[in-house]
């Protein structure tokens, strides 16, 4: 089972909706939880016990913290210490499962991991930490916690939601509503459009270039890399549309994972718009704790004594930033390419931070308008290179391969060789991919301007409105890259 299959949107989801609606509101959460576990079972079978174990650990950890807060005779620092020990045990247990399944392969021990372990483990940690911090109350009903950790559209590749966002809405068993179903399915359709029309169409070129870049001119390698970036965006954000659309069907608002990332100002802004829920998770549970940790503060203080505030103010954020990007890299998998990817962004964002103020001053002195067209274009070009080079290393099988591909792009680039390269796509595929990308770009521009395209379509008169949706449906059916000559690609981020 996978979200991009019609079996999901046209069979599994309607079946769940029907059963959900037929159950009395009070016990709808049971129907939903059963659907969650069946979905999990369909993919990972018996490995579901690990998911159940993580749920139990998380529940008990939250309860124990709550118990200690209420009943422990300790006060102040002593109490914090006790809470911290309990949180530590909880995190070690759930994170331990993730480490065992994901990282022991470094030592040659491999297990098949339960689906979504990279995602739900982060949710267990955020819940336990929030209880520790006192920002949420420990859950008394294990069913609600189980729902929060296992909601079926989220389980495979996020978005990583917070307990405070989804636990209660999931449990409430809200009535299905016509408007929600219609809007939800529209969003699902839009996701299928991105995935089937564009992402899967570009896939063969990406595979060809990354598996045999030695056979290609630098120009073709560059095209392959750009195609990969586009494929990844279309595929990941497309699956998000399907996922968030599914939530919408049940009246559940799942957090957005993308916000027009390619219109970002710089690398740090890009990461506030790309895989947003991973970024905010790392911010709340790695960045802040590290930068406010006592040892880090101590170091910052001693640096201040020696070098002054101009330098010391960068100490804590930089240390924390390093931890964030190391975690980001490692989270994607046990491989040097991922660590390199993390460090690449660490360095870039670090540079952006220390140069921001001087650049601003410089621009002011020279009277350069930073919001002028020229500056915007330059910024866009810079970001384009940054993102594509990053994704190149992300996709490469080794850091060395990444560098030799990069060398090929910049060293052996002949635009004339591009037309002779066989990228596994015919002229129709290329043209159609281009049209699809332009459509998505236009929609993204509208979203960036704050226009809701779906609301706009909904406000059209019926024949026109239906016409639009019929056109989208038929274009997916006729122009989708499925069936003979194409391979439907499995969801990329479900593998992380």
């Amino acid at each position: 089972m996978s979200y991009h299959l019609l079996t999901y949107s046209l069979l599994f989801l309607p079946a769940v909706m029907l059963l959900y609606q037929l159950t009395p509101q009070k016990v709808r959460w049971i129907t939903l939880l059963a659907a969650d576990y069946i979905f999990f079972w369909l993919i990972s079978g018996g490995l579901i016990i690990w998911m159940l174990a993580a749920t139990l650990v998380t529940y008990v950890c939250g309860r124990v913290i709550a118990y200690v807060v209420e009943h422990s005779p300790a006060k102040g620092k002593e109490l914090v210490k006790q809470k911290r020990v309990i949180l530590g045990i909880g995190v070690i247990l759930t994170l331990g499962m993730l480490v065992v399944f994901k990282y022991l392969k470094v030592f040659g021990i491999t297990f098949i991991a339960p689906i979504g372990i990279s995602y739900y483990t982060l949710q267990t940690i955020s819940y336990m930490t929030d209880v520790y911090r006192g920002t949420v109350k420990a859950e008394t009903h294990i069913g609600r916690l189980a729902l929060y950790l296992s909601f079926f559209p989220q389980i495979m590749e996020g978005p990583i939601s917070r307990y405070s966002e989804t636990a209660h809405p999931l449990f409430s068993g809200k009535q299905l509503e016509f408007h929600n179903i219609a809007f939800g399915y529209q969003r699902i359709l839009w996701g299928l459009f991105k995935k089937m029309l564009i992402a899967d169409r570009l896939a063969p070129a990406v595979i060809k270039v990354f598996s045999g870049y030695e056979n290609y001119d630098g120009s073709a390698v560059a095209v392959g890399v750009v195609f990969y970036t586009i494929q990844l965006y279309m595929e990941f954000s497309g699956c998000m549309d399907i996922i968030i659309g599914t939530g919408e069907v049940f009246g559940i608002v799942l957090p957005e994972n993308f916000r027009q990332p390619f219109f970002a100002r710089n690398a740090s802004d890009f990461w506030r718009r790309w895989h947003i829920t991973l970024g905010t998770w790392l911010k709340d549970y790695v960045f802040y704790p590290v930068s406010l940790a006592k040892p880090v503060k101590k170091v910052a203080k001693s640096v201040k004594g020696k070098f002054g505030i101009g330098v010391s103010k960068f100490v804590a954020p930089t240390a924390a930033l390093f931890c964030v990007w190391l975690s980001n890299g490692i989270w994607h998998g046990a491989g040097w390419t991922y660590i390199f990817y993390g460090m690449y962004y660490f360095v870039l964002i670090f540079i952006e931070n220390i140069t921001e103020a001087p650049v601003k001053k410089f621009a002011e002195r020279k009277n350069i308008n930073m919001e002028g067209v020229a500056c915007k274009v330059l910024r866009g070009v810079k970001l384009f290179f940054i993102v594509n080079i990053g994704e190149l290393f992300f996709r490469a099988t080794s850091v060395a391969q990444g560098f030799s591909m990069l060398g090929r792009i910049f060293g052996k680039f002949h635009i004339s060789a591009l037309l002779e390269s066989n990228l596994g796509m015919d002229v129709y595929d290329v043209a159609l991919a281009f049209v699809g990308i332009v459509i998505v770009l236009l929609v993204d521009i509208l979203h960036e301007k704050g226009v809701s395209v779906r609301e706009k379509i909904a406000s059209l008169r019926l024949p026109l409105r239906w016409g639009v949706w019929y056109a989208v449906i038929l274009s997916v059916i006729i122009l989708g890259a499925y069936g003979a000559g194409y391979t439907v690609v499995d969801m990329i981020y479900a593998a992380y």
Partner: protein
Amino acid sequence: MKINKNVVKSVGFLLGLFVLLLAMSAVFHRKNFVNVYDRESVERKINEVDAEKDNSLEVLFCGDSECYSSFCPTLLFSEFGHTSYVCGTSAQRLCDTYTILEEVFKTQSPKVVVIETNCFYRGAKSSGDSNDSVLNFLTNRFSVFAYHSDWKNFVGSFTGKGTGKKEKNDLKGFIVRNSVNPYKGGRYMVECEDEEEFPTDTYTYLDKILKLCNDNNTKLLLISSPSPKNWTYARHNSVKKWANQSQVGYLDLNLQNNLGIDWDTDTKDGGDHVNYAGAKKVTRFIGAYLSETYGLPDLREEQDYADWKENCKATYDLEK
């Protein structure tokens, strides 16, 4: 009342969609090549072979990418004097092999048809075989799902870029690949008793192909190209079994030590396909085998095949 209105609207929308699907299915409808998996490749290949002189080919090579990587017709001609053509296409399935052969037999009367065995494990279903059961269901009901990619033909016929042109291929379907990426896995054909069964429709199509060959007085020969990534002894056993039962020749090059493949230099992708260096070894080996087993004549000095001689020169230029 509001709910009823919504229900009416939904039903109306779905009905409209159903009608549209029926209409589109009438548009995306095929008269020929119905049981074909990859119509585009099949059509291209048929047109290619159609550009050859009638009854000029003695050997046809079918199969997937292993086939056009391993068998070099121009080399086969320049060293043994046998004319041949590679009818292999990327990821070819046996249903496509069958259709290609059916069409090619109309203009050619080859003495031997060689099928590279890797495609036996690709299944032979023509459509509706993704792991998406709802998509399969729709594909079997509405031809717009099955033949949707024909939009390229529609667009092509408007822009004049359509298929149907006879394109001559100087390398006779072979694809030269010189890059080297060694295979380091060591020995791979470990003798065993296991058998890895073919997908069921493979048997059906193999029988159909055999009958087609018999009807055209053509010998069928199965060859497994050297490929540590794809081939195993269990697969060998299964092919051997079918070949014996059906009294068809079978040559497993993975077991031929005197073939002399050097996995450090003769593969382009770590033991998946042989590169040109490997293809030369394979072609020379089977050239000798074909001459000996089937007594194919040497056509190098025949006036009718002068153009073949020209093409061979072109191949040698490639190597320089």
